[in-house]
């Protein structure tokens, strides 16, 4: 399986990840190499194997539905790139 430069651009867009145009070819080559490595997995039959998502096979712990966190808005926003009136600012989304 090999990926083209266009595939890489499409994946980068899905990930909202800027990549330099001169690097696209090398990513295509590296990712194709990784996909080649992965074809080894096709050598074994896993039809009846249950997928393993987590080493302990545990489910998410539940807790009582009560507030445990304090309001740390000011502390968290102190390290934000741009805030105003308690809100995070981004470029205009709606014209």
């Amino acid at each position: 399986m090999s990926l083209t430069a266009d595939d890489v651009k499409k994946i980068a867009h899905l990930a909202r990840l800027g990549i330099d145009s001169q690097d696209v070819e090398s990513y295509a080559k590296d990712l194709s190499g990784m996909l080649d490595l992965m074809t080894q997995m096709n050598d074994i039959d896993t039809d009846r194997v249950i997928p393993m998502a987590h080493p302990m096979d545990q489910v998410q712990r539940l807790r009582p539905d009560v507030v445990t966190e304090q309001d740390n808005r000011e502390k968290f926003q102190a390290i934000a790139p741009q805030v105003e009136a308690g809100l995070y600012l981004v470029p205009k989304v709606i014209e």
Partner: protein
Amino acid sequence: MHNKTIADLAKGLRSGEFSSVELTQSFLDRIKQHSSLNSYITVTEDLALQEAMAADGRLAKGDAELLTGIPMAQKDIFCTQGVKTTCGSKMLDNFIAPYDATVVEKFNNAGAVMLGKLNMDEFAMGSSNETSYFGVVKNPWDTNTVPGGSSGGSAAAVAARLAVCATGTDTGGSIRQPAALCGITGLKPTYGRVSRYGMIAYASSLDQGGPMARSAEDAAIMLQTMAGFDEKDSTSVDQPVPDYLAGLNNDLEGLKIGLPKEFFGEGLNSDVAAILDAAINEYRKLGAEVKEISMPNLKLAIPAYYVIAPAECSANLSRFDGVRYGYRCENPADLTDLYTRSRGEGFGKEVKRRILMGTYALSAGYYDAYYLKAQKVRRLISEDFKNALSEVDVIMGPVTPGTAFGIGEKIGNPIEMYLSDIYTIAINLAGVPAMSVPAGFVDCKPVGLQIIGNYFAEDRLLNIAHRYQQVTDWHQQTPKGFE
């Protein structure tokens, strides 16, 4: 002072031979003297001296623990309140963590002194510390070679005696591989044993923090503080923490060691293999029985890992979007441009490669072929461990195929770099604990022995490593120029 173990330093602090402030100052001086290793990203000199003063106060009051006043350092993946936490990335070069990781909080409560934050591969993705935005770390045994990664700064700092001990994290070998290449003792605990709260996520079902130290005894002291249930980590395991020091000297008579034939085949450097043979012979002398075992699915660990880890990484790293914290690009034209350029400019090449791989593996039409398939293979690998560990007490093998490689030697070929983790990755997929223990040298470069145990058998692993360190002195060797 800098060559002593934690237990000896604790004695010295109590007898008044030296104070924590003196001890801390001597390590701060060494860090400055050997700054060319680049093992630290941030040295917290003032904070360290304040903490040392507080520790001296606790010692005077008789209210001290073993780690009180001991100068150690944190891998820069652990959030430290008020101190820059970069994760080795430009993305977080301006990030002052607003809270402490649970691991950091535990060391603080124990009165340990933090000397600073240690260099690492960017977002813990790498096997050589060459992907760090803050530059490559040099291996103190040979400064033309890498220290391993991703906890390369931790391993180099402990080996060069620039910290008594350090924390590391291990997603596919990131504690054990650098520990092996730098000649120190490292332990990746069972998944869920050490809290991940405040430990910046790479691949959440594989990441695990652990101790990196001079000896198994020091690692046991550290793990005693690090381990335990934490309700702030949703995958933390609620199981009592044993006394890791109590069983260190237990007899190894009748210990059953399994050697997977898949670990000793093609690809393993023959000089490294000879050193492992000698180490296993030491265990025979200590009363262990050794048998060959087979783990047929081990060979699939690398392909499965390089689907699962990038998939989880692409999801975890989506939080770095230039909006709430971290790097933001200049003059974004619109919201998409803000996301795309902040991420594009903030992340390095290896991180991008893994985000791309993971995004592809999770994208519509490919999920079953890659991600689901890899999760099924993960089950088979984990069953190999369960079967093996029902037959033997521990599994032993190499940590790395060879010794430390040259700076620049593998960075241009990512697949070759990935293959250097061939003996460590399967352990993370299964979630079992494993250690790297210094076992000898090839051409003056350290070699590690890997000891793998059953879930929550950290106490047994530490015991097995400690007994070996009682009859060998590989772990006491110091690199030239750092005595």
